[in-house]
């Protein structure tokens, strides 16, 4: 009990320190650093969406950049037409969510490669569409906007104000997502990923929850698009680039799949590694990023988020195997824990086929 308490207070304290850092950081940092911090918030939200569909629900999604781009274009259009910004943000959530849901309604019956193909198609179709409808998108040149400047009463510079705006959006998104993945819906996502037969038996429709996960993922992608435009003040077909999607998947795995903290670590990785690699050797950025990717995956297959656990395992020795009631003083006997092994019957294929 003591341990749990200590742990909880430790977590709260860490969270408080983190919050203070987030609030104070832009006041004492350069514009360059504020820009990077803001970009971390932007891509944290995009990654959060990706993690919900891929990390938590186990469905391949290689099209997140399309929703990022869609959100950015909707935001640019709304800003140029001087719509209310709250309305613009709402549209950046709702329209990509609707598009994602429509795609998912058709695609969620597919698995593996077929599903991956559909999601790959999104940025591949999105880029020529964006070029084509240039009166909305500015075509290949892209579109520049100027919005979300700091109001006078705040006494802040624009970059500081914009940082606080995207940070607020990111915090709200993370709190809501964390609540979601912890309860009934999160358990449904997890069992859809793990075993669809069991999901069905427990009253979870895998199809419905896949569509839901895709919808939420697209919604968060669109919101990240709004945030992106707020920070960069420019968007072009490049925002949808397929390689952005691939890099987001890599960042999700590196940070930690199916983990909220891992999502944040993934966003830090996504934004900072190219910057760091560029400063080490600007002509070898891709190579250095790739080397870091491989090193992390090799040393921490479960992502950066597993670093503390991995460390304590290395220091604290081996992991408990075959836990038994004897591990706990209150339990009456340990006789029932002998593992007789699983006898293989000829029906080992049944569960897969029952899906």
């Amino acid at each position, binding site marked *: 009990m003591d341990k749990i308490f200590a742990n909880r207070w430790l977590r709260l304290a860490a969270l408080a320190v983190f919050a203070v850092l987030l609030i104070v950081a832009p006041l004492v940092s350069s514009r360059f650093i504020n820009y990077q911090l803001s970009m971390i918030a932007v891509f944290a939200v995009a990654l959060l969406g990706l993690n919900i569909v891929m990390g938590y629900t186990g469905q391949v999604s290689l099209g997140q950049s399309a929703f990022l781009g869609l959100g950015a274009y909707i935001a640019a259009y709304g800003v140029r037409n001087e719509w209310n910004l709250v309305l613009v943000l709402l549209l950046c959530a709702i329209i990509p969510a609707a598009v994602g849901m429509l795609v998912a309604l058709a695609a969620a019956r597919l698995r593996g490669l077929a599903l991956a193909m559909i999601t790959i198609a999104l940025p591949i179709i999105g880029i020529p569409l964006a070029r084509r409808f240039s009166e909305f998108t500015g075509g290949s040149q892209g579109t520049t906007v100027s919005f979300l400047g700091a109001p006078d009463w705040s006494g802040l510079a624009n970059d500081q104000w914009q940082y606080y705006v995207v940070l607020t959006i990111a915090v709200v998104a993370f709190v*809501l997502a964390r609540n979601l993945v912890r309860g*009934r819906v999160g358990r*449904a996502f997890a069992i859809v990923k793990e075993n669809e037969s069991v999901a069905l038996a*427990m009253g*979870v429709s895998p199809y419905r929850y896949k569509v839901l996960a895709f919808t939420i993922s697209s919604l968060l992608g669109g919101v990240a698009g709004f945030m992106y435009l707020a920070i960069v003040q420019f968007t072009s077909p490049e925002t949808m680039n397929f390689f952005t999607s691939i890099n987001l998947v890599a960042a999700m795995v590196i940070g930690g799949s199916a983990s909220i903290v891992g999502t944040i670590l993934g966003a830090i990785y996504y934004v900072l590694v190219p910057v760091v690699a560029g400063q080490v050797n600007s002509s070898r950025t891709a190579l250095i990023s790739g080397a870091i990717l491989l090193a992390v995956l090799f040393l921490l297959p479960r992502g950066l988020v597993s670093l503390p656990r991995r460390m304590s395992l290395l220091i604290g020795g081996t992991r408990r195997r075959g836990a038994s009631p004897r591990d706990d003083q*209150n339990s009456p006997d340990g006789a029932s824990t002998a593992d007789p092994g699983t006898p293989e019957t000829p029906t080992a294929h049944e569960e897969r086929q029952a899906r």
Partner: protein
Amino acid sequence: MAAELSVRDVSLHFGGVNVLEKISIDITAGQVVGLVGPNGAGKTSLFNCISGHYQPSSGSILLDGIETAHAPASRMASLGLARTFQHPALRLDATVLENVMLGAHSWLPGGPMSWSLRLPATGRAEREARGEALALLDRAGLAWAANVPADELSHGLHKGVELCRALLSRPRLLLLDEPAAGLSHGEVEKFIETIRGLRIDFDLTVVIVEHHMGLISALTDRVVILDHGAKLMEGTAAEAQSDPRVVEAYLGKEVTDDESA
């Protein structure tokens, strides 16, 4: 209220293979029925038909008089059906309690909106489910394991966790697919006690697929013997064990094996 199950002329074909041939079984509310037969007899397939995982090729399945043969599997939990699987399928990375909590899915209220906003109703229901889950784990002698990751438990304990998960859905009909397979002698005794306790405290109808004849005799009111997808006989466990057709179906092998256990 325990459920009444009626399987009528259910057949199941895969391609040219007749997995089930016109199976009819009637189970009254509150009974514990054994479903016995050699490997490949079609026991798991019949469970899959009842639970909606397979669509029977013909025939009807009535749960409390409601036709469910073509209901989607994901609806069955809310109709009061729960099942375990021959090979326990838990989330190994999650704790035992998290695994059991999935069982509450069908009766927990609220959709994605209310859960992401953590509306008070969802919080209350979640606490209620947690309390029930812990009570079930306690009953199965697994309270100590609530916060242990499932992959640290033995196979026998996984079966107990899976049973708790099924029970948390508040079922009225429980299908257990080889719950004692791979359990040690002590674990089987404990399992028999657990099911006896359930019969007293829960209002449940239970169907058990099992090769372990000791367990079948100890727990069931009645057994149905399947062989090659057809019903061979129906009666008490004692009648079944002395029926020459049953002994022949098993080639004497598994029956005598398990009797000695």
